């Protein structure tokens, strides 16, 4: 398997806080990676660096062999690397149709002049393509509803639909930031089915997720981050049995000798 995306000794510093401390990560073609770790481990920061939203203070990011450190997210998206966001980040009071239309427009070419020329032609928002995509992501009934008024699970699916539609360079990379959070069982199984389909279509996926059962079922490999460092890496069953990983999640050594002392008030 060829390597698509790598982070080599990537560091990010926010003022006095070392958010990422020489993180290493590789994503191979058509691989499904899980990225887990306690809150504040730097998972989202790592995703921000990989997707070009944040410039690292040190280290190198490579995509398809090219050094893409410091490239902006629009540049990476045009090279076939797209992401979703942790919060439900929908365009306020814009319909599901508008969102999917934006994804199609990005696929048709995200340049301003091309978009302006196409504006005088056929409206992609009224075409059959929108319906097809909506159906694939279980959004058919909600096409003309405001996206920010949808249930959270549907908002997540819409976010994935947009980024996947926008990604036209294959094999594409999809970075997901807690896509399953707030989903009920039905939505979660739908989402996991969609991920499986995307892999069949050639996507490589990196998913941050707190739901251990789901992530260990879906992912080929897990990365565990703790306090901005690589803690462990490997197949889910091996990683989750690792005593270091367990202690990171419990916040103390397993014998309890370093359990944090409660010093606060009531």
């Amino acid at each position, binding site marked *: 398997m060829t390597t698509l995306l790598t982070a080599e000794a990537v560091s990010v510093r926010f003022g006095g806080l070392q958010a990422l401390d020489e993180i290493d990560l590789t994503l191979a073609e058509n691989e499904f990676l899980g990225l887990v770790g306690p809150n504040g481990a730097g998972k989202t920061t790592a995703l921000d660096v990989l997707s070009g939203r944040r410039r690292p203070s040190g280290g190198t990011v490579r995509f398809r062999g090219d050094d893409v450190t410091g490239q902006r*997210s*629009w540049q990476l998206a*045009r090279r076939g690397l797209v992401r979703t966001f942790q919060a439900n980040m929908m365009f306020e009071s814009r319909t599901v149709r508008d969102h999917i239309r934006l994804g199609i427009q990005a696929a048709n070419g*995200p340049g*301003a002049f091309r*978009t302006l020329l196409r*504006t005088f032609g056929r409206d*992609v928002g009224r075409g059959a393509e929108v319906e097809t995509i909506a159906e694939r992501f279980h959004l058919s009934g909600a096409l003309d509803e405001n996206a*920010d*008024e949808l249930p959270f699970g549907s908002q997540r699916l819409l976010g994935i639909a947009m980024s996947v539609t926008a990604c036209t360079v294959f094999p594409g990379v999809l970075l997901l930031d807690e896509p399953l959070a707030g989903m009920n069982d039905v939505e979660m199984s739908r989402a996991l089915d969609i991920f499986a389909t995307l892999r069949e279509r050639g996507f490589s996926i990196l998913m941050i997720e707190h739901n251990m059962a789901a992530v260990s079922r879906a992912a080929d490999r897990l990365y565990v981050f703790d306090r901005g460092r690589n803690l462990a890496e490997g197949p889910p069953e091996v990683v989750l049995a690792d005593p270091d990983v367990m202690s990171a999640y419990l916040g103390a050594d397993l014998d309890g000798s370093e359990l944090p002392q409660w010093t606060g008030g009531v």
Partner: protein
Amino acid sequence: MTETISPPEPGTARGRRRRRIPVPRLPLRFALPLAIVLVAVAPLVFADAYRLRVATAAGLLAILALAMNLLIGGPGEISFAHGGFYGVGAYVLGILTVGNTLSFWPALLVATAAGTAVGVAVGIPALRTRTLSFAIATLGMGLFLANVFGGWTSVTGGSVGLANIPRAPLDGIPVPGSIFVQSGVRQFYLVWLVVLVVLVLNVVVLRGGFGNVLKSIKRSEVLVESLGFRPGFYRLATFAFSAGLAALAGGMYAQYISFVGPDNFTIFTAFNAIVVVAIGGLGNAWGTVATAIVLTVVPEYLHALDDYRVVVFAVLLFVVLRVRAALGWRT
């Protein structure tokens, strides 16, 4: 009486959604022919030179307001520099045609291009900011441009301005209204032809794919950028386009009035355009044109009220915004 706490209804977040009356939207293929007919017959209805002058002035305000509407309805920014761009168009056209450097039509083209270029120059630094900061940044640029018009005496004529700007060469073009009134009917048609063109541009751009990107940028630049769009470039292109249209309006104004002076291109000129767009519906091109007409015509009937006209406008603005809110029209 028992109350049960029910989960949010499916399809709603937190279950609180107000029913809204949709903003009426007439497709362009019906609305445009109607508007063309209205413009065509208007001089036949008010067949006197005074009313025709008022209607032409309304058209000039409409073009400037439509330029602003593109910016407010798209990326959602408010610019106080548009009075300056309006002035750039007016002065460039005036300077070129007074000295006979160029004939009218090429001069109008150069004036529009100059406004676009100044828009790029102003936009590159100003667009680093957003919303309120952007309004203040453009306010500074607007003041600066107004000072240039008043102070660069060798080019702009300073406080004296430029007089005897030749009008667009329209004589001899046969128009239907000229049967009834001779004076000013061609100017009326020229100005309103430009209004219709700019109106169609507004509607097509804002409703179409480009507008979809702009409206998305207004809400989340990060999300739009993650799909491969360059939000900064879209915002700059829109701002420059809008500045160019404002300069076009300025060129039309200069040839119609035949005179330009620094008092006509201040931040208050931009403010007027913003008020028209605000009452018209923030991004609603048809509403913008309708408001430009109302705000030009109504004062003509209120001369007796003198300075108290302002009170009438305040009440009008309040009523319009209240009604819009009651209908649940968000913009």
